[in-house]
Each structure stands twice: as C-alpha cells, then as structure tokens.
C-alpha cells in the first residue's frame, strides 16, 4: 500500500476493517479478475460510458506549434469527463462486495455526478455530500445528481466546500461502514484507493498508448495532463510509466501565485507537487499544501476540479523519482487555453484540461515531436466561471462577451 515513502492508511480504526475488506476485494476482483469483474467493468465502461475515447490529431494546434499534437478525448466520456471510469469501477466493485449503499463527496460536482450516474446505472442507492456553498455555485450539477436519483446532502460546517464535504463523507462512512462503500473520486485516500482508482483510470493511457502507436508508428515523446488530486493524470500516465522515452508532465494549477500566505492559511494555487511538502492528509502520506505547523492551507484555482491541497501519493512518488515532471500554469494562462481550444479546435475543454493545453502553449518546444494532451473533460460545467473570469481579466483571445457580463 505504499509508493516509496508515500501512501499508507492513515484512517480511524473504525474504518480499517472496511479498508481491509476493500483491499481484499481490490486484489480479487480488480487485480485477479475474479468472477469476471474486470471483464464486466470493461464491457460496461465501453457500452455505457462510450469507451474507447478517440485520440484526435489537433490539426490547427499542430500547425500552430509545428509539432504533432494529439488530444485524448476524455471529454467524450458519458457525463463529460474521465470521472466515470473510476465511479463506474467502484460502484460495480461495491456491488460485487455486496454493499448496499454508495456515498461520495463532491466539490464542483463532477465526481458526484459521475457517481450518481454509475449508481443509477447499477441500481445502487447513492448519497452525495456537498458543501452548501458549492451547492449554491453548482446548481446544475446538484440537479443532475438528483434527477439521477441520488440524495444530495448539504454540508453546512466550516466554509461549506470540498474539505468539509470530505470530512462529512468520512463521518458517514465511519458510521455506516458495514453496508456502505465510499467512492473516493481521485487517486487519493488510504490504500487501496490510490492504486484502485489509478487502475480504473488507466484505461486512458492503455488506449492512448495503443492509439498513438497505431497512428504514428511509435510512442509519443510526451504526455501532458492536468493534476489536482491526480486521477486523470495517473490515468493518462500509468501505461507510459515504463516507457522511459516518454516524458510525463503533470500540470498543476498555478492559480494567481505560487506563494503561500501562512498568516492567512491560504495558498493562491493548488500546486502541491511543485510547491508542497510531505505530510498526511485524508488517509495518505503525500505532498501537501500546509503551513509550517502542518495545518492544511486553503488552496485555490480558477478550476474547481484542481482546487485541492493534496495530491495522489503515487504522483508524489513519481515526481520524487524524477519520472514525472511537475509543472504549472497560472489562472490567466488556463483561461486563454480554454478559449484557444474552443476557437481553434471546436472543443470546449474543462478548465482543468485547459491547464494542460496552456502548458502545451507555453512549452511546446520542450515537448518533442509528438505530444499527447489529455482533455480530461468538457467545459460545459465551466461556462459561468469562464464568463466571470474572462470579464474580470484582459484575455487577449476571448470573444466579445459583453452580453454575458451578468452571467448566463
């Protein structure tokens, strides 16, 4: 359950039996395909989720950067992001384990909606915890979860955002651990979550590797993916980790600055791989945004899906090993990246994915001749944010948005 010095199982004793049970199930069903679990998972993610997603050559970006740019189109997955790979895998696993109820936490709502879809598809009752403030900011996603039949429970403690929702879900799990499975949404949390989520998400790189070879006759020179918790990152990297010739870039949210305000307990970024330090959070030892004492600081990103103070322990490990290069782009660059892909390729990316595209823009000369960029999700969910963030900035490549100044 460790990646070098990272990982582990830092959870309350009450949860340990469930974690042991899950570890056992992970080994049997996921690793050893017992009862054909992985076959069923692969069939369902294909038929229900729409895999494989295409690896598309981005003609205009390729021309612009004088390099071969390929986009891995996770935005086309059911629900609009890579999140379903994991949610479907875990809900199916919970069914195999005989669990009767699913819980999950969600910040912006992407993992929550993916879990709600998977739970509806597999006929599992589902309850999603979401901070009250996030609920008010992400009403369409709340509505989607509810029409998928999930219960959405507002968390009113603290600031009412993701971290409170995570704590609340942990508490529900600690209370109902015997019949309930907690679907963690990224490659974070105690073992076996980081490995298991990675394995479900690894379909991305499994396909992309094959598709790249089929298309170009060779491995790509680099793979670029945004990194918040890191599930699309590890999904996009995993099958390439053994290919020494492929450079792996994890693009974090540089936010407005890489500095941390210890006084206020705020990091105006979410770059835990680039700037964080080792610590223990949410069940695992990993790189964190924390103050000198070890208190977790409030992270920030224009993209709520990257806005997390931790990161998957395996990524922390691969960065220490030198296998993954942590990089970051700031909010401004991400917004420009969003507009660029929308205008030039007809693909409206999630603001998360826009970070990867912004890095491509800034550093395309360093990425070799063939680059795969993971478009982890679509941007429909971000339209309001983009309006707000574009109108407050001077974005050189944005269309005239005067009619949207009041929002949608």
């Amino acid at each position, binding site marked *: 359950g460790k990646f070098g010095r990272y990982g582990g*199982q830092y959870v*309350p004793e*009450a949860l340990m*039996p469930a974690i042991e049970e899950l570890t056992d199930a992970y080994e049997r069903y996921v690793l050893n395909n017992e009862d054909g679990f992985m076959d069923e998972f692969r069939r369902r993610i294909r038929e229900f989720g729409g895999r494989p997603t295409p690896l598309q050559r981005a003609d205009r970006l390729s021309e612009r950067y004088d390099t071969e740019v390929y986009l891995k189109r996770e935005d086309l997955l059911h629900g609009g992001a890579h999140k379903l790979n994991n949610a479907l895998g875990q809900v199916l696993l919970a069914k195999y384990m005989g669990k009767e109820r699913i819980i999950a936490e969600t910040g912006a709502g992407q993992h929550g909606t993916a879990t709600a879809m998977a739970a509806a598809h597999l006929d599992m009752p589902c309850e999603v915890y979401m901070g009250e403030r996030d609920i008010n900011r992400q009403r369409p996603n709340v509505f989607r979860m509810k029409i998928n039949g999930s219960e959405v429970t507002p968390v009113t403690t*603290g600031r009412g955002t993701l971290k409170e929702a995570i704590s609340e879900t942990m508490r529900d799990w600690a209370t109902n651990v015997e019949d309930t499975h907690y679907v963690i949404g990224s490659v974070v949390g105690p073992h076996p979550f980081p490995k298991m989520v990675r394995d479900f998400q690894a379909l991305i790189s499994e396909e992309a590797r094959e598709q790249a070879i089929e298309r170009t006759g060779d491995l790509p020179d680099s793979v670029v993916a945004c990194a918040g918790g890191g599930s699309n990152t590890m999904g996009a990297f995993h099958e390439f980790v053994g290919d020494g010739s492929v450079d792996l870039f994890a693009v974090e949210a540089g936010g407005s600055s890489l500095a941390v305000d210890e006084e206020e307990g705020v990091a105006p970024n979410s770059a835990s791989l680039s700037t964080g330090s080792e610590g223990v959070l949410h069940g695992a030892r990993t790189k964190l945004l924390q103050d000198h004492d*070890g208190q977790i600081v409030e992270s920030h990103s224009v993209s709520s899906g990257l806005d997390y103070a931790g990161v998957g322990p395996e990524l922390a490990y691969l960065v220490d090993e030198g296998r993954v290069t942590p990089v970051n782009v700031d909010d401004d660059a991400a917004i420009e990246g969003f507009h660029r892909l929308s205008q030039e390729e007809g693909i409206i990316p999630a603001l998360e994915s826009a970070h990867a595209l912004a890095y491509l823009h800034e550093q395309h000369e360093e990425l070799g001749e063939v680059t795969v960029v993971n478009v982890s999700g679509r941007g429909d969910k971000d339209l309001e944010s983009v309006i707000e963030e574009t109108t407050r900035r001077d974005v050189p490549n944005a269309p005239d948005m005067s009619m949207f100044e009041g929002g949608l």
Partner: protein
Amino acid sequence: MAEDRRGDAGDDRSAGDPVADAFADGPAFVPYLAVGDPDYESSLAYVEALAEGGADVIELGLPFSEPIAEGPTIQNAVARALEAGMTPTRFFEFVEDLDVDVPLVCMTYYNLIYQFGSGQGPRPFVERAAEVGISGFVVPDLPAEEAGPLREACDEFGLHLISIVAPTTDKERLEKLVEVSSGYVYVQARLGVTGASSSVSDRTGESLARLSDVDLPKAVGFGISSGEQAATIVEAGADGIIVGSALVDIVAEGHERGESTEAVADRLETKARELKRGALDGYGRRTPAPEGTSD
C-alpha cells in the same frame, strides 16, 4: 507530570504511572476539551474546572484543520480554537501553564505530530510533549498499521499511545492494536464520529466483552452526555468514561451567549461532577459488587 513508561506492554504499568493510577482506584472520568477554545485564557480555566470537578485523566485536543473523526460539535470547537490562534507551539505552552494534578493526554491528528520538527518524524513532537508533562497520545487517524514510528518515540520518552477500539474491530485487529497500545484503551461506543447522544449504544457491552482479555483499562467514549449514561456504561464493565462533546457544548453555549469565563467554568465543573458521580454510581451497581468498591 510525565512518568517513565519504559518496558513492554505486557509489564505491569501501574507502578508509578499516573495514567495507570488514574484507573486503579475505581472508574476513571476522562473529559476532553479542545485547547484554545474559544481562547487561550478561558481554555485554561475550563480545563482546570474539569480537574476540579473530578477528572481522573484529561484529554487535551490539539486542533487540526481537517478533523475527520469528529462530529460537528468538536469540529466547531476546533475551528474556534484555530481562529483564536492555537498552534502546536502554543499548545505546549498551554500545558506548561496549566495548573492541574491529573495526567494529561494529547489528542490530535498525525500530520501535526509529523510536521513538528520539520520532517524528522514524530520524535521532536513526543520529546516536547514529554518535556511539558504530557502522559500520552490519542491519534484518531493513526491505526496500528501506521503507528510504528510514534510508538517508538513514545517508548523512548516514556509516553503512552492510546489506541481506539471500534465496534468493527475484530479479534485479529484487536491483537495488533493491543500490541501498540499502552495507558488505556479508548473504546468507541458506537460507529460514527464523536458527539453527544441521548442513548447509549447496545454495542458497548459487546465491545467490552470482546476486550475482556485485554490487560489495559477500558475507557468508553462516543456519545456519553449524562451521569446516567456514565453509570450505565460503567455498570456494563467500563473502567472509565470519556466525555467530549457534552463538555464542548457547554463551552460553545457560553461563547455564543457571551457568558463570563467563570460562569462557564462553573457549569463545566458541575457537569464534571455529575459525570464522575454517574460513573461511581454505575460502579456501585455492578452485581456482584466488584471487590474493592469504595462504598
């Protein structure tokens, strides 16, 4: 106040160990407060009031920003304390400033222990805790599997590492737990998180039965808020009762109402007495009356 706890877990720890002493003479009352809630000075007075009210051991919560094992009551207390500037360094000063005569246990999350001393592991934290007279630790996010380095440091400085036993803990895990535990066992009365509740879980007796072979005092926590509940728990066989949220509620209420520190401290002391008395009553009710009962 710290005493040496060297030696194996199997040894008789009561000799000269204030924690062992606290459980030696009838049921122990173990209250919890978040240190620095709602401010440093009041918090000092509140902890001293608990001692005055009959506490046998006091659990001092060092506030962490992500208290995943706590219910809303303690969560809010932690937030108030952090807001008022509580830090690990201040926490140790607080312990030094405290004028009480009962063993003190530090309850906090592992990241704070780990970060103290900047990445050299838990040793600097434990060393400093020993210095100020802490007797032991309760770390809710540190299961037996990850407890090694902290256990080692505790052994070095003669401190206890108190493990939590949950209703879901099976025999196999119990063995692992006991191996790394000392001082007492924190028996979680029900699943879930900390928080006062009106009824005491049926699972308490069951849990205590499973622990009958464990050669450590069993203190039961989670949900105890009245003397009567304390009595029931002790009657069921507990060696002590741990009460947090019911006390934190009094602090929160006083804070919200703008009551004076003295008034709140009085109420805490009164509540402490009620709980301690409840524990003693429960002890008295045991049939057959255990040997050595005080009345």
